[in-house]
């Protein structure tokens, strides 16, 4: 089966701590490799604020995996993610073959900004449902 380029962004429960997050990252790395996937890169974004509460948590460890794997391998990885309680959420996306790898600066951006001032110059006539 042809393998494809995927990336998976995983949110790890903050109570795992730095150490636990590292261990889980390593576990997932070996899992992908066991499934005959090849890791492109792993980015650890560290503890970030969430845009809203997830499982009553305000923050989570974000880890981004870029790898090549077969669709069956991806299904297995996702199944494991779903079974792992320490994983709050994840999203897997198929990447274009020619897409450049995610630059590191996305990761190192300090604190997640509040949704900042939208569209400079656009007329703000979007009705706000406020009475």
């Amino acid at each position, binding site marked *: 089966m042809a393998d494809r380029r995927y990336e998976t962004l995983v*949110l790890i429960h903050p109570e795992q701590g730095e150490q636990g997050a590292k261990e889980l990252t390593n576990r997932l790395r070996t899992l992908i490799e066991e499934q005959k996937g090849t890791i492109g890169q792993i980015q650890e974004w560290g503890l970030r604020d969430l*845009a809203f509460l997830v499982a009553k948590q305000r923050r*989570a460890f974000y880890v981004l995996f870029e790898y090549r794997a077969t669709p069956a391998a991806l299904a297995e990885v996702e199944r494991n993610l779903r079974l792992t309680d320490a994983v709050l959420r994840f999203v897997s996306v198929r990447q274009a073959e020619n897409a450049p790898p995610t630059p590191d600066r*996305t990761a190192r951006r300090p604190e997640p*900004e509040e*949704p*900042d001032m939208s569209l400079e110059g656009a*007329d703000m006539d*979007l009705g*706000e449902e406020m009475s």
Partner: protein
Amino acid sequence: MKERGERRGSSSKGEGRGFRRRGLGRRKVCRFCADKTMQIDYKDTRSLGSFLSERGKIMPSRITGNCARHQRSLTVAIKRARTVALLPYATSYP
């Protein structure tokens, strides 16, 4: 519709060479078409954030001027970002 047209018209008054279509004001150009190097990526919360209203709603393309194709990929990216709590579904305060 009419009243908006007038408003836009007056807001772009200062720009001398703005192209006018029946008083609708300057025609907006899709930012992603104008700058081909700009990628739409769900992880890039900073640039996606500029397409959200203060409430966290996705701005319609009639305001941002995005072309249909890029608006589609933009909404997908924003929705992906929301599933992993990078962007809000809604903010409690305006």
